[in-house]
């Protein structure tokens, strides 16, 4: 068998392409012993000689971070390849040369395949290959693996390298102190018979890498020397420093290699991203901009969702309801079937369906905003405010999640390490108005504020955030005190949101929404419907039904808030089961009030604008749904905190609703 060539390179450097180009069909695949990493080998004939080619796993480094790295490292150290071809992605030179530097440290024979030079050229990146090769002290061969260009030169260089002595000189300094330590360490190591390159081992010892430390431990001669041991212990003290300095030295080395040997188009000093971030994360303007963007989102939601799509949808539902109803009547279905279907399902579910376009548009817009990368900026802007109330900004991330649903919102507080931050974040999450509450607001908006939907919805969300911040401040002053922990947020690059994708998914979203919401609503409404028609003989949906009586029992507590009807009470309580059910429940219980009339006009007749606002405030703040309470119990591990969360939110919601109604009445609103 001839000589062995090993291929090493970063992932996506074109290593596989090169391997295939070299070996053609002459290859077989197996596994590296003990790991699941694929081992590929093949043969290449060049100038009457046959070379074995081993394709090592793609890796950025030769440490112990992953199986891939270890396989590559171990093979180079102990597999005795005659030469290593380092495949380097020319469009990403710095990153790729970091690996090259590590190969040079190992002292194995290396040649560089500077691959993808065509791609580099198209990006106007050019190389002084000769200078590059000179500085690295090893041959550098430009290749275009996918077009099989440069392969002969590469193999020629490899065969020369195999027969020649070691690599040329390369000048890497890790700084004076480390360099001296390395020399001392190498002189210690040279007394032991080691099969691996001393230079590499010494560096790895300074870096504190497990693998290297283990080898040192096994050297009895070294361990017996007190001199060595005190030297060795001294090294451990400065390990952090050495780790950073050594990695840094590699990057600096790469920098000196690249400087003057690579030319590329100048990158613009400040990109528009920076400029955008200067404005969007501005200390003063960031927040108003965030508010303005949200307001625009809500306004657009109503403009598109209601005016354009909503009307036709609502009419369609109404017509469909009528058809089903007359159908049921014509086949003379029993009263309870007709009742359940028309008052229970159509009145309940139908209301929700009418609002689907609005909900969809809102989520579409929020999705676009998130896709664009703006939400991270918003979270950063909020960070300043969160800190002012004694919270860390990461809390806002769980709050953003809470706008979708409080269950994952509460769950996402897991990423907060500090108990104080976490408990507060959990307790305030229910104030983030979840998606399921939207239809409730929409009914009241449609009844009383159809012209100002965006503004009303915006105000509700804003109030939610405000209450969350106020409660957070109170909690951090009373229940949980402690330090605010520091963290840094990463602002991702802006991206063009993919509208096409979003729209394509829209239908899926609608159908999924209908099925899931339908299931929840049906469950709750069915249960309530039974309570609304029992006991047999009473007027269905009347105050004498079981539901009516229970509702009437609770209703008085909502009197001071202006909506002390049993129907409103029942509606709110159904929301503790699931917020999706509130509108459907209202639809059902109010179906008894004015036969057949749609919910919005009934609401208009039993509420006033002021009580409507009070009701919406209550809806925003009161007890979260059962699933959220369960999640709070799970995450806090305490029934006590779950109960607290369920009750204090109710109390706060009630108090705020009462305040709205009482102050509003005093000011002469009705």
């Amino acid at each position, binding site marked *: 068998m001839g000589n062995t060539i090993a291929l090493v390179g970063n992932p996506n450097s074109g290593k596989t392409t090169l391997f295939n180009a070299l070996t053609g069909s002459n290859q077989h695949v197996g596994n590296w012993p003990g790991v699941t990493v694929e081992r590929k080998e093949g043969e290449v004939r060049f100038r009457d000689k046959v070379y074995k080619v081993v394709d090592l796993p793609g890796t950025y480094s030769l440490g112990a971070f992953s199986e891939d790295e270890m396989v590559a490292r171990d093979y180079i150290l102990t597999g005795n390849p005659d030469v290593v071809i380092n495949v380097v992605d020319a469009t990403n030179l710095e990153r790729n040369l970091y690996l090259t530097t590590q190969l040079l440290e190992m002292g194995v024979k290396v040649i560089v395949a500077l691959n993808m030079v065509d791609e580099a050229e198209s990006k106007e990146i050019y190389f002084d290959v000769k200078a590059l090769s000179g500085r690295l002290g090893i041959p550098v061969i430009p290749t275009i693996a996918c077009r099989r260009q440069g392969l002969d030169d590469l193999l020629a260089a490899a065969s020369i390298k195999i027969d020649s002595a070691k690599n040329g000189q390369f000048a890497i300094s890790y700084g004076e102190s480390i360099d001296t330590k390395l020399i001392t360490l190498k002189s210690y190591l040279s007394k032991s018979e080691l099969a691996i390159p001393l230079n590499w081992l010494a560096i790895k010892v300074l870096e504190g890498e497990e693998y290297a430390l283990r080898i040192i431990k096994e050297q009895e001669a070294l361990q017996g020397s007190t001199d060595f041991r005190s030297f060795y212990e001294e090294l451990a003290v400065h390990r952090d420093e050495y780790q*950073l300095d050594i990695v840094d030295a590699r990057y600096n080395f790469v920098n000196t290699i690249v400087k003057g040997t690579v030319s590329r188009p100048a990158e613009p000093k400040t990109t528009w991203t920076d400029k955008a971030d200067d404005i969007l994360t501005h200390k003063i303007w960031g927040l108003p901009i965030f508010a303005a963007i949200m307001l625009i989102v809500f306004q657009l939601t109503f403009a598109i969702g209601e005016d354009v799509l909503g009307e036709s949808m609502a009419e369609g539902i109404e017509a469909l309801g009528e058809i089903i109803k007359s159908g049921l009547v014509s086949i003379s279905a029993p009263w309870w079937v007709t009742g359940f279907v028309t008052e229970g399902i159509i009145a309940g579910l139908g209301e929700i369906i009418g609002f689907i376009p609005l909900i969809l548009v809102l989520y579409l817009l929020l999705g676009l905003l998130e*896709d664009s990368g703006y939400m991270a900026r918003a979270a950063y802007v909020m960070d300043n405010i969160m800190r002012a109330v004694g919270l860390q900004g990461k809390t806002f991330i769980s709050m953003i999640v809470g706008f979708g649903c409080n269950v994952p919102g509460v769950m996402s507080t897991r990423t907060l390490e500090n108990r104080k931050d976490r408990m507060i974040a959990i307790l305030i999450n229910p104030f983030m108005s979840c998606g399921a509450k939207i239809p409730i607001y929409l009914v009241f908006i449609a009844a009383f504020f159809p012209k100002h939907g965006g503004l009303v919805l915006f105000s509700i969300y804003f109030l939610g955030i405000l209450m969350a911040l106020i409660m957070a401040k109170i909690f951090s002053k009373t229940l949980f005190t402690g330090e605010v922990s520091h963290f840094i947020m990463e602002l991702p690059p802006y991206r063009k949101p993919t509208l096409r994708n979003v729209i394509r998914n829209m239908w899926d979203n609608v159908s999924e*929404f209908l099925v899931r919401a339908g299931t929840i609503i049906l469950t709750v409404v069915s249960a309530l419907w039974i309570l609304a028609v029992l006991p047999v003989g009473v007027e269905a949906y009347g105050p004498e039904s079981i539901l009516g009586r229970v509702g009437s029992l609770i209703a008085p507590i909502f009197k001071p808030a202006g909506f002390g009807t049993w129907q409103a009470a029942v509606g709110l309580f159904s929301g503790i089961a699931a917020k999706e059910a509130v509108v459907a429940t209202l639809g059902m219980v109010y179906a008894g009030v004015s036969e057949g009339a749609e919910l919005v006009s009934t609401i208009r007749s039993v509420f006033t604008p002021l009580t409507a606002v009070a009701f919406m405030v209550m809806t925003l703040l009161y007890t979260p749904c059962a699933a959220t309470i369960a999640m709070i119990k799970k995450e806090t591990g305490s029934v006590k905190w779950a109960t607290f969360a369920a009750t204090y939110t109710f109390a706060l919601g009630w108090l705020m609703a009462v305040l709205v109604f009482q102050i509003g009445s005093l000011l002469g609103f009705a």
Partner: protein
Amino acid sequence: MLKELLVEIGRADYISKYMLASKMNQPLGLIEDVFTQLIRLGFLEEDEGLSTCDLPCGRCPYASMCNTNPIKTINLTKKGQDYLTSLLN
């Protein structure tokens, strides 16, 4: 460069790899690499947040609209913090 970046991170409230790249006059890929190095050496910790909402979303009607773009945060580990403190002294 690692130290430089670590110091930057220690000082900053937010990190934009783009901005750091243009500030330090290095290609973005390299800055990302250095981050990875700092993480693997244990000076930094990256937190991807809840990158999926499959689990708790369960039967939520809005699950399919749930945006799962995580907001990444970065923490200095104790090692990182200790190191920065020692650098300042």
